[in-house]
């Protein structure tokens, strides 16, 4: 663009308005074209442009009235007074639509182009008195053109007259605004019309593009090698058939098909006999044979059959496109988080709670975090102080302790323990006197009563006071696996495996409604 810009600068001197039109930026296309016109018109006014050529393009001069236009002097440039400017037509054709659009650039933005002629050469209307038709169908009369005298007077009187240009397309006079005249002047001098446009930047870009520094699109990678004789399959795929599935490739002949294969390829007589024993399908299709010379090769008996089958393959047998999924096997592996993401994770062992003699089956931390209870396979439950690893209390049960769970309420330090078929609710002995009193009250059961819950045909539970361990003992009909407290501490649930027959099946959980008295007590505590 820059280069052509330069051209335009040179040509400007020749006043080749067409080029200026095409070379300017599109934004200014319209304006410039008009300006080019005006330039011509204005040029005639400016004495500095005495070097103007008079090509036929300068009929714009003639555009202005009576061909002589506004010029008060230097008529040297005008051509004949063909006011319509025949040669200009060609140019004005370009300019007209632009001019129409240019209309919008000028001060009267709101006014739509009034030209109703359309895109026809205006010379058709040269001899007519009207130019176009209005919406009602009536002819639009041409404006009366000023004759020379009038135009001269107008020039003298009206200081702005030099700015007015006759818009032939719309049949009116358009006055250039100051900005527009500035633009025109700049263009005359060969500068860019808008002050803030830097042509040198554009030139730089142009040079860069030409040299290849700036690339817009990725250059196509030309394949360095290409196959002279492509595969049937690949070439036919490109033919644009939608669901073309190539025929299976016939196997290339290998060593077995040779007329004189190595000895190891040839089956022995025993092997040939064994082929007879096999099923039809299992037999090898081709038995290699050996011939010492080409002369002794017999005709291939399956020739016709083979080619027939090939033909069938090609055009008769239905083929199914197998959708092969390319899965990267690594992507099937679950994404494990890296070690860093898992931080902070426990890395060093600082405290060990020693005391149990068997495997520790379950641990549970008290609500405040000061104590831990642990149940072990040695039949004991121990209560530990977290900070110092001190064992505060030990409860002895005969059997393996499956599960321990603290009551989540900090005011009720009750420990639920599952041992065999029993669930024990133990008073851990923690807390001040008041809490201890309440816990003891709670854990006191007078008479064993049936549980009031629903849905169980067999009542297999019994509540009993257990003084040995200071708590309540619940006997189930099966061994209990675990016990969980409700968040509010009022309820707990126990889990037992369902049946001996269905060992692996889903576990049944029974929800216990605590005895009435306990419920009331607990509720009252939770409200205080």
């Amino acid at each position: 663009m820059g280069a052509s810009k330069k051209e335009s600068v040179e040509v400007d001197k020749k006043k080749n308005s067409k080029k200026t039109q095409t070379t300017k930026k599109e934004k200014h296309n319209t304006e410039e074209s008009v300006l080019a016109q005006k330039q011509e018109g204005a040029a005639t006014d400016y004495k500095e442009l005495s070097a103007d050529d008079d090509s036929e393009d300068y009929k714009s001069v003639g555009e202005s009235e009576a061909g002589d236009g506004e010029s008060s002097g230097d008529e040297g440039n005008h051509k004949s007074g063909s006011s319509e400017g025949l040669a200009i037509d060609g140019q004005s054709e370009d300019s007209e639509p632009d001019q129409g659009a240019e209309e919008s650039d000028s001060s009267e933005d709101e006014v739509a182009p009034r030209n109703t002629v359309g895109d026809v050469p205006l010379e058709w209307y040269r001899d007519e008195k009207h130019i176009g038709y209005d919406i009602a169908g009536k002819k639009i009369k041409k404006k009366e053109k000023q004759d020379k005298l009038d135009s001269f007077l107008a020039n003298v009187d009206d200081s702005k007259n030099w700015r007015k240009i006759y818009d032939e397309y719309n049949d009116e006079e358009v006055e250039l605004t100051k900005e527009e005249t500035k633009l025109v002047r700049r263009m005359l001098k060969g500068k860019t019309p808008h002050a803030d446009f830097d042509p040198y930047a554009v030139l730089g870009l142009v040079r860069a593009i030409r040299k290849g520094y700036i690339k817009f699109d990725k250059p196509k990678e030309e394949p360095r090698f290409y196959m002279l004789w492509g595969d049937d399959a690949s070439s036919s795929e490109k033919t644009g058939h939608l669901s073309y599935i190539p025929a299976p490739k016939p196997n290339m002949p290998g060593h077995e098909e040779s007329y004189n294969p190595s000895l190891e390829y040839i089956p022995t007589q025993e092997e040939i006999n064994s082929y007879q024993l096999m099923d039809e399908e299992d037999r090898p299709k081709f038995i290699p044979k050996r011939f010492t010379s080409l002369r002794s090769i017999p005709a291939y008996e399956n020739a016709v059959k083979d080619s027939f089958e090939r033909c069938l393959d090609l055009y008769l047998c239905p083929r199914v496109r197998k959708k092969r999924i390319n899965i990267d096997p690594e992507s099937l592996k679950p994404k494990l988080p890296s070690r860093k993401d898992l931080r902070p994770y426990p890395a060093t062992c600082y405290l060990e709670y020693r005391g149990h003699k068997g495997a520790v089956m379950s641990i549970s931390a008290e609500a405040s975090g000061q104590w831990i209870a642990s149940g072990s396979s040695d039949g004991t439950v121990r209560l530990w102080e977290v900070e110092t690893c001190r064992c505060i209390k030990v409860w002895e049960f005969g059997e393996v302790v499956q599960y321990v769970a603290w009551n989540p309420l900090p005011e009720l330090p009750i420990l639920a323990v599952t041992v065999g078929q029993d669930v024990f609710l133990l008073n851990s002995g923690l807390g001040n006197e008041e809490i201890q009193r309440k816990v003891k009250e709670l854990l006191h059961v007078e008479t064993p009563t049936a549980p009031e819950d629903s849905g169980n045909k067999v009542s297999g539970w019994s509540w009993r006071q257990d003084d040995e361990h200071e708590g309540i003992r619940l006997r189930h009909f099966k061994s209990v696996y675990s016990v969980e407290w409700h968040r509010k501490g009022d309820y707990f649930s126990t889990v037992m495996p369902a049946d001996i027959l269905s060992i692996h099946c889903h576990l049944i959980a029974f929800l216990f409604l605590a005895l009435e008295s306990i419920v009331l007590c607990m509720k009252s505590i939770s409200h205080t």
Partner: protein
Amino acid sequence: MGTDMEMDMDGDVEERRVQVRFITKLKPPYRVPNTSIAIPANLTRLGLSTIVNSLLKAGEDEWESQPFDFLIDGELVRLPLEQFLLAKGISAEKVLEIEYIRAVALQKEDEPSLHDDWVSAVDGSCPRFILTGCYDNLGRVWRAAGECTHVLEGHSGAITSVSVVNSEGTDSVTVATASKDETLRLWKFDNEEHSDQPSKIRAFKILRGHNASVQSVAVEASGSMICSGSWDCTINLWRTNVSDTEGDLVSIKKRKVKNKAEESQLEGEALSTLVGHTQCVSSVCWPEPKTIYSASWDHSVRRWDVEMGKDLSSIFCGKPLSCLHVGGEGSALIAAGGSDPILRIWDPRKPGTSAPIYQFSSHNSWISACKWHSKSLFHLLSASYDGKLMLWDLRTAWPLAIADSHEDKVLCADWWKGDSVISGGVDSKLCISSGISVL
């Protein structure tokens, strides 16, 4: 003495030498002539100590060698001199000024005093006695190793922390104990009693108010108030009016008590409660009348304004903290240790980051106690679950001394009489190590 003395230690002429001058803040018997000496550059602390000793001996015939420690540019020398200079980038061309101090080392260990159960708390702030608390719910007062003078009875739970409230009075001493039975008790006794049997004392005031074990107690400097931190995440302030005024008498709540005490005991309520921590407050410290520092298992050290009752600032480190003490330079450095074996020291006066200015990491397990020396600017001690007591100097990253006096975890430690270290642990022993010359 000549101005330039050459001490030819090895007879090797090629050896590099450094010009040094020994200076000290110690009193005259320890003064060395202020001349510059050329010494071999590969000497360690021991070698330097030998030089100083021989210099002192030259001045005074009756001199007995003592171990010295050396400071260059405010840092203790722990490497051979040459390497030390290289590491610090100190030029060996000009005369080097080495300051020497008496080396801190544990010299004597007394007979450990046996308790009946774990020794969980110890206080050595009064030089006349040692106060201990034990897991058998009793507090004890010891006059010296093995000599128990008083037994403080009354708690129903293990004692977690003890503190001497007021020992200014002529003979009468007031102490406070905190226990897992959620109460604090105040005791008064006469120190001058001498009897064969330890006398049993009951508390004259019981402070109730916490909902969970009281973990730590700290006394205000004047002795009129104490604060306690507890497992219920709060800190309570209590008044310790020694005089029995009516105002403190609160109606004793009705309760089923099996063993009813005969004497009337005052019950006190908390003056105010400081709420802010989200987990157990493991340690509290009251360095100035208006500020309380507390450390907690919620990883923070908080500074509280006593009058406002609010926490002013907090320092977060990533580990639950179990011990805290304020001391050091300007009594402003905070030392805290917790569940990782690193002893951290913060300077709250420094603006900006809350990163510790010193970190001492020679322990192997939880740090259960840390205490600043009451008079020194640089010395503190720490006790850990790995059974070791370590003496630290801020000027060097290695411990000055390690005492391996306990077989099991050490639960508590303190300074006593300015030159001894007392500690109690899971092995139920109270150990006293003395002869430490800090100043």
